[in-house]
């Protein structure tokens, strides 16, 4: 479980922000208004943001600043949104991309 850093010896107390609610894969969570979606999820102990399209292995953030696209999720129906860059807002519906179908592999697994 990860936590927020409420007090910091140099940076001081955490900035007070309004709390908002959102859903991720149909489960309800709370986060701070305007913080990146990835930070809000991590503060709730959620590291896995999606599964690799082909291998179905779990993936989370890598660079946290928009370069690697590892953190992409679907936000209010918009696919491929980088969760490390996107500010959280009240009522957002966030979903993992999920595994894409791999018809060729599925077919060969069944028929070979």
């Amino acid at each position, binding site marked *: 479980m990860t936590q927020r850093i*409420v007090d*910091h010896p140099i940076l001081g107390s955490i900035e007070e922000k309004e709390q908002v609610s959102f859903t991720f894969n149909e489960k309800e969570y709370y986060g701070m208004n*305007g*913080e990146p979606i990835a930070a809000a999820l991590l503060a709730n102990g959620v590291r896995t943001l999606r599964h690799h399209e082909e291998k179905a292995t779990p993936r*989370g953030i*890598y*660079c*946290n*600043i928009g370069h690697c696209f590892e953190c992409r999720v679907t936000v209010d129906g918009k696919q491929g949104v980088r969760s490390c*860059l996107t500010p959280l807002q009240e009522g957002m519906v966030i979903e993992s991309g999920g595994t894409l179908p791999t018809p060729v592999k599925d077919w060969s697994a069944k028929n070979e």
Partner: protein
Amino acid sequence: MNNVIIIGAGPAGMSAAIACAQKGLDVVVIDEYLKAGGRLLGQLYEQPDGSWWNGIEESARLHQQALDLGVQIQLNTPVNNIEHHDGQWTIYTEHETLSTNHLLLATGAAESPIPVPGWTLPGVMSVGAAQVMTNVHRVKPGERGVIIGVNVLSSAIAMELKLAGIDVACMALPKMSQLTDQQAHPKHVLDSLLHVSHMAPSQFVKLGSKLMKNDFMKKLGVTFYPKRGVNMWDIPIQLRKAVIEIYGEKQVEGVTVATIDSNGEIVAGTEENVEADFVCIAGGLYPLAELAALTGCPFYLIEELGGYIPLHNERMETPLDGLYVAGNITGIEGAKVAAAQGTTAGLTIAKQAGFEGLDGEIEEAIQVVEETRDQSYIQFHPEVNKGREMVKEKWEEYVLPLRSI
């Protein structure tokens, strides 16, 4: 049409915006991140005079100063493409299309990955990712981490994690492979660590910087490097152990380390597990120059500056009309150098936009860049000055034949 468009709201882009706006130009700054400041945001370290370099405060100061001068700052706005037609630059963002005669690229740097087995597991992140989570968003990347890759940036960030109350189990090298080459070689790492020794309370590293001036001594240093590692800010730094794998079912549960000899080869049978819930990978920085590559600007590989560099002169002009570069896109250095380069670029743009009598100020700004570089607290590459000289030579070679036509 805007007078000036700047891509990147880091210290370089913001300082340039301020310099342009002070001369009365209309400036638009575009950045894909949700806050202004770029990679300055996460920085936090104690300076030699005992004061703290607080990236969040510095960023807020630059942001406010720019707003006060009327600079337009568009955040959450990725730039996808740029084109050049009839002396005019067209900038395609995710939301709209803009145009200008003066375009500054200040897109900064990115981190190189090190593909250690298991590195795609959730909980594995770049060391910069952990820095931003901790210092900017104030969420712990985990309770106990392992840092793979020992360099200036990872040493600084290890200390920042400790400051925030996060346990760092150890820092170690990655297993040697064709991809990791120098970063996995203990002698090379020790060599570059000697350049951060003033930040390290450890007697070993401190003495090291005085004693190990020649190669032979360095080799000795590695051979006698204590097997248990040395401690920097209470974090064991292992130059004689390498991470061979990151393990975990659904997310990181730990790493397997093994002893390596002074050439970086694994000693069989020495494997052991270190528990952790996050892993940081520190592969070093390289200039993020994708947008500059789209323009057809010539590039040169200069290792001393961290990678491929778009050709530019000291006034921050590229050989293309109306295209300028500043900050880490021109080579990896600290935030203060990036800001000084930004100021230079801003003054150069003001001059090219028709503002007269700026030559003296531009010369002074170039001086400030050099002085800032010489006084730098964090040096990403020990031979950065040599790298800068190489760019100057390339510029001369490039413009000389054009002049004689």
